[in-house]
């Protein structure tokens, strides 16, 4: 039986179809979850996709956090459900306090879309075991509010406990502190990522296929479990 990975659609989600495609390419079954439902439909993992939920009005992710399904998700994540928040999904995870810190306006004040080189810093989270620690990959970034900020204690804590999942190389596209592109929670089941691995799963349409590892990692883990 293949793993079932839920993809939540909020009003204004944009990359939900892409996330579902990536799940499929990782040989798992994508399950659409609608923000207003009260049930996770028994999925084995959840992706919060990129986009502009609620138009990014107020603050990116601020309104989506209150979706009925999020209450269920927060509880399940605390119990160890693998959760990946991509871009807007990362913002929602921070707003929900599943991950520390916040994502603010890019320091360049422009939306930035580019093929971005990253280094995978932690290859032990639920979503990164198919990478090597220190591996460099090229994955698109595209965001307006991707500047990761946190207070110095939180940053120290993230750094010292190995909770930086990925870091920008060459160019820091949004001014993130410590070049942070992604982080995880203490248990490593919840990962937030600014770049879009779901746009790097097919050589034809992406920058590479180097994003597929995020999806295959979790699928392997689920199948093994």
């Amino acid at each position, binding site marked *: 039986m293949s793993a079932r990975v839920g993809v939540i659609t909020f009003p204004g989600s944009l990359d939900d179809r892409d996330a579902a495609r990536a799940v499929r390419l990782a040989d798992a079954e994508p399950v659409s979850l609608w923000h207003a439902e009260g049930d996770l439909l028994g999925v084995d993992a959840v992706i919060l996709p990129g986009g502009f939920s*609620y*138009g990014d*009005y*107020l603050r990116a992710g601020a*309104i989506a956090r*209150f979706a009925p399904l999020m209450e269920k998700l927060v509880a399940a994540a605390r119990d160890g459900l693998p959760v990946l928040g991509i871009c807007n999904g990362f913002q929602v995870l921070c707003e929900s306090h599943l991950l520390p810190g916040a994502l603010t306006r890019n320091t360049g004040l422009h939306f930035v879309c580019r093929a971005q080189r990253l280094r995978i810093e932690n290859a032990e989270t639920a979503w990164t075991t198919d990478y090597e620690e220190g591996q460099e990959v090229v994955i698109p970034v595209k965001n307006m509010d991707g500047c990761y900020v946190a207070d110095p204690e939180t940053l120290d804590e993230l750094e010292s406990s190995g909770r930086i999942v990925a870091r920008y190389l060459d160019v820091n596209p949004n001014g993130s502190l410590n070049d942070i592109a992604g982080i995880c929670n203490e248990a490593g089941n919840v990962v937030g990522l600014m770049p879009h691995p779901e746009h790097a799963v097919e050589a034809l349409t992406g920058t590479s296929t180097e994003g597929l590892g995020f999806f295959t990692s979790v699928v392997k883990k689920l199948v093994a479990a």
Partner: protein
Amino acid sequence: MARFIVEVMLKPEILDSQGQAVARALPRLGFEGVTQVRQGKRFEIEVDGPADEAATERVRKMAETLLANPVIETFELRAE
């Protein structure tokens, strides 16, 4: 050193999509009874020198040309 506050709001006749989105979301978040939300910007500006007429005029000019877009926004200015 003088400190000014400039508050910029959309003109009432201009669609405030942000404010409306917040207002539409509120009941779902358990906040009933909110009839309107408007969202604008607030600037805190510190300038060298005293908070005199001249400084106020300079900040007003700034607000007119840069902080607010007179085509769709209005602003209020006060010293603090």
